[in-house]
């Protein structure tokens, strides 16, 4: 007999071994050695036993604890089969969840902002995280970091935070180190670069720069987050980020009005509006009406390739559509929903099927012709597809909703779906070709290829430069130079560029004085003067020798400087909640290659709750 204690015992054992495991930083390959092969075999046997117990339980009187015991043997910490992630998988799909599940994050720092960022990552189910911080928990942490209590004072902050965070999700592995981030050697940095993402929270510019260099070269994303009082900033540094699914809202429908595929052409040819009963006419899906209107448009112009390109052309199409309507004998009205829809959709639908600039630049990039990265392999296949198909991308294959009788709508929907599948098949064939040429195995699955093709018109690549604070300060100063606002606006609202410059000046203040402005009980007015000096220095370093810095400095108001000193480098929990939330969201976008992350700088101003993003 199995009793509850046995299940508890095995749970405890799983936890015990799990705790001893170091952070997993790459995929686990079964069979990497005799031990691991044996373990994998044992797991398979347990799984088989579990499977045979399930039907037995239905038919025989079997101790239900047996199943629980077997289940826990196979589903240890690394396999959480529950529907814990159900609500988020609906956002980024199983493939997105798998990417998150194989993401390991190294976080430098363990303050409130770091904890808030990590909290959302741990809940989302990253594979592992590693906290590096030499700070000890102080009184000030208790007020700001929700997870720390009075008992934690004096402990390693990384350790204390780790303990609380790992409780949030048993399938995530966490570990920590009490090293000081400023004392990390080049070798340490290189070791940490094996994580799939590194996050620097409120680190000095020197630490940021050191990591940026190493990570940029190996294309590992690096995210710098900073907060001070009511201000928060995020800087995402990555050489190249590919986006397979941008989840763009409300994309233009892919109807191919200018380039119908064969089956669609056949259906258009057999459609004769004049031959229909009025009921049939009023239940004709608008895409067919569009094609018929286009036929008429071409007839009128005596040009069988004519296509509306201007707004007035499209108005003409709308008029043609109106002329197709017929009135009923009894009611006299010509109105019907399908024609209303057809007219409303003209502006969006009558667009040439072209390849957008960003997709074009992807297909012509050198990466496409050489890289062995999965994204680029499939892009090269896509390029070959486009070449072989008159410059057209694979069909998206989804038909917008339209008023119609069921049979014609179903026929159209099926036709679009099947054509999209066929296009994807062709891309897959090209992919296999490319894979062979570049000497990689079949890395792209059919499913991945199909999904990719569905979003092919919205793939994106973001390219970034190496993080270089002095270059960026120059750009910030350029932004300040361009600000033209009246005095009142200047007094009421501080520009996001000003905040970045002030954050940088405060960093320099700290570096030179060993403390942040507004701390140690020094009067704000004195620190404000010192901070202003640093602002001036930063501006001077960024302008040409003879340029008058006054007009630029004018945009850094006294009240903004005073506000920066008033913060005294304090963290506000609510600001951590905002900025940490956004940072973790961006890290998830980076990990899943879905949605478009911030490119590359984000500033949040808690005074007005306004946010700005721009590229530095």
């Amino acid at each position, binding site marked *: 007999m199995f009793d509850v204690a046995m299940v508890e015992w095995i749970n405890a054992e799983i936890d015990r071994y799990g705790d001893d495991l170091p952070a997993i930083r790459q995929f686990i390959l079964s069979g990497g050695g005799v031990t691991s092969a044996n373990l994998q075999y044992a797991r398979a046997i347990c799984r088989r036993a579990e*499977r045979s117990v399930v*039907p037995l339980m239905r038919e025989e009187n079997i101790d239900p604890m047996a199943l629980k015991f077997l289940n826990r043997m196979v589903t240890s910490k690394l396999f959480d089969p529950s529907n*814990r*992630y*159900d*609500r*988020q998988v*609906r*956002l980024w799909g*199983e493939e997105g969840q798998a990417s998150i599940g194989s993401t390991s994050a190294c976080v430098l720092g363990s303050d409130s902002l770091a904890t*808030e960022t990590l909290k*959302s990552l741990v*809940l*989302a189910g990253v594979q592992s995280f590693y906290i590096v911080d030499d700070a000890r928990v102080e009184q000030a942490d208790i007020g*700001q*970091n*929700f*997870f*720390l*209590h009075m008992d934690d004072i004096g402990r390693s902050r990384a350790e204390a935070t780790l303990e609380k965070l790992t*409780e*949030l999700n*048993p399938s995530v592995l966490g570990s920590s180190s009490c090293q000081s981030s400023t004392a990390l050697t080049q070798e340490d940095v290189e070791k940490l670069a094996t994580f799939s993402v590194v996050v620097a929270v409120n680190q000095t510019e020197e630490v940021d720069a050191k990591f940026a260099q190493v990570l940029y070269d190996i294309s590992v994303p690096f995210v710098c987050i900073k907060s001070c009082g009511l201000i928060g900033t995020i800087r995402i540094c990555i050489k190249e980020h590919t986006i397979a699914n941008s989840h763009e*809202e409300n994309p233009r429908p892919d109807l191919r009005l200018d380039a119908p595929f064969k089956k669609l052409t056949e259906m258009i040819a057999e459609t004769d509006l004049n031959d229909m009963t009025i009921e049939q006419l009023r*239940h004709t*899906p608008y895409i067919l009406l569009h094609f018929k209107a286009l036929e008429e448009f071409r007839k009128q112009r005596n040009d069988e390739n004519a296509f509306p390109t201007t*707004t007035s052309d499209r108005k003409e199409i709308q008029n043609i559509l109106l002329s197709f309507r017929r009135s009923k004998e009894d*009611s006299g009205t010509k109105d019907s*929903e399908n024609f209303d*829809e057809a*007219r*409303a*959709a003209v*502006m969006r639908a009558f667009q040439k099927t072209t390849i957008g600039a960003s997709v074009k630049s992807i297909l012509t990039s050198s990466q496409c012709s050489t890289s062995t990265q999965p994204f680029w392999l499939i892009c090269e296949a896509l390029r070959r597809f486009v070449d072989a198909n008159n410059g057209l991308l694979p069909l998206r294959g989804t038909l917008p*909703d*339209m*008023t119609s*009788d069921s*049979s014609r709508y179903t026929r159209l929907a099926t036709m679009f779906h099947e054509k999209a599948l066929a296009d994807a098949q062709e891309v897959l064939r090209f992919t296999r070709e490319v894979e062979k040429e570049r000497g990689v195995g079949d890395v792209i699955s059919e499913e991945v290829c199909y999904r990719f093709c569905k979003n092919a018109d919205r793939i994106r690549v973001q390219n970034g430069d190496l993080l270089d604070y002095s270059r960026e300060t120059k750009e910030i100063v350029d932004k300040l130079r361009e600000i033209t606002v009246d005095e009142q606006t200047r*007094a009421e*609202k501080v520009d996001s560029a000003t905040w970045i410059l002030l954050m940088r000046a405060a960093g320099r203040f700290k570096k030179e004085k060993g403390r942040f402005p507004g701390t140690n009980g020094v009067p704000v007015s004195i620190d404000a003067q010192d901070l202003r000096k640093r602002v001036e220095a930063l501006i001077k370093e960024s302008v040409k020798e003879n340029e008058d810095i006054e007009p630029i400095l004018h945009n850094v108001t006294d009240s903004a400087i005073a*506000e920066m000193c008033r913060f005294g480098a304090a963290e506000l*929990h*609510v600001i951590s*909640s*905002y900025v940490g*939330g*956004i940072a*973790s*969201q961006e890290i*998830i976008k980076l990990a899943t290659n879905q*949605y478009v*992350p*911030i490119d590359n700088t984000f500033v949040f101003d*808690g*005074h007005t709750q*306004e*946010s*700005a*993003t721009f590229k530095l």
Partner: protein
Amino acid sequence: MPCWTEDHKKIQTTKVLVVGAGGIGCELLKNLAATGFKHVHVIDLDTIDVSNLNRQFLFRKEHVSSSKAEIATRVIKKFNPDINLTFDHSSIFEERFNIAFYRNFDIVLNALDNKQARNHVNRMCHSARTPLVESGSAGFFGQVQVILKGKTECYECQEKPKQKTFPGCTIRNTPSEHIHCTVWAKHVFSQLFGEVDIDDDVSPDLKAEEAERPEADSQDDEAVKEPAPIGTRQWAESVNFDAEQIFNKLFVQDIHYLLKINHLWKTRKPPTPLSFSDALKMGDALPFSESQKNQTAVWSIATCVKMFEACIQELRKEASANPEEPLSFDKDHPIIMSFVAACANVRAHIFNILTKTAFEIKAMAGNIIPAIASTNAIVAGMIVTEAVKIIEGREDEVKNSVIMPQPTSRGQVFMFEHTNKPNPRCYVCSDKKEVFLYVNLAEMTLSGLCEKVLKQELNMLAPDAIESNTNSIVLSSDGETDPLMSKKLAELSIMDGSILACDDFMQDFDVKVFICKNSNFKGDQFEIVREMKKTVEKEDDEEKKSEEENKKEDEDRRKRKVEEESDKVDDEPEIKRNRVEEVQAQGIEVME
């Protein structure tokens, strides 16, 4: 420069009511505690589910099926022993949460997941004059609205898009989309194991067809006889819940009945009956446990049949374990969900509709909207920011805000809208509390008026109604009028032009309902509008027109959203006030 002074004394003495301890609620309680709030009360009716754990960070696996309010309180206090945090594991609609209760608080923060409760708290705060911060999230979207009596719009000032419903005959007779099959499958579940609702009948609806059947066709349809009006449950019991017999009744007999209504299939492709034994031959049947795990693959029809069979036996066992309490649909109950998925797919197959994965069906059946921790954390930050402004008396600075999934073309992640003035025609917060109710007076019953109009549509809890001309009591919440419930409105001397003064004592809410006649509505069908319709047509014409409309409605099920006319598709979206509600309108209800 506006300045956040964080007046600590005020924050420490402010009494806060948090309604909801779910996704936003957990984050909000954390933010309140860490910001220094000391007096907080939280109310939540719900218990913890596994699917909550990806974001409701105060809860652990071992807390599953415990009270959210209780665990949240316990965990927050563990981290912040100083906070005076109390809870109620109860429904916000309970009588003890009356206006006096709301007056105990300086501010109310909503972290709710449904419109009904939001409407209710909105009214209670309006009556109690308590400031309210309202919130919602859906995936990467989030929004916060500040509601101050007399100064800003209330939650009900603008009409919210209604949740999509489908005509009964579409569900029962002529499904054309998978969602119709899914809704039907949910009804099959409740007919067999749940609380029986006459609105959820699953057999062919012949009555509905009679009305629209052209007379010339009646001969063709003579052979049609309605299936015996015996309850599905009763019948299932009579065959001892034999899966094969139930399957054949639903997918052979009933389909044959439908096929006999010839005119239904003149423009539609007719369904094909499918017997249990034939269905089993369609594809490989995965064993129960395998297919259970395989939520993202489309099950073969044979697998669906196996699933159908296994689930019926399981659910029957579960139902008979506690015969007093019928099962209720729960999207996170694996067996119930598998049953619905299997059943929906078989029906879809029969009606030539593409079948879907269990994962997709779950989203439709459960009105699931995606939810993640990070958005909720941001929204909770937004709520506290607005709350602090209100507490510090900076009411002119409050904002309604939205968080976007990605930056707009102007680089903003947050979008704002200064709060609007209250709508002078709002039936909740204005002086002109009026709505127009279009009904068929000869068919709508008093019970329909009470349950469907006043309670469901106007969100009253225990309505009273007086006919203003005669001063007669039409509806009384103390039960006096209960014997009249089945009477038609016309029988109670309610006529076109009657004005009903309706009142809810608990919400301290009253509204005048102007009765307008629409003889084309059937049964309890009705329409509520905020302004009287302008078109006054001759009655004959009107009738003809709506007859046509009804017909069209039935046939144009395809129509959902019309693409907006726009030349400039790349323009950034203007701030959309009811962003999240829009998502809601597309058939997804819950947010948190």
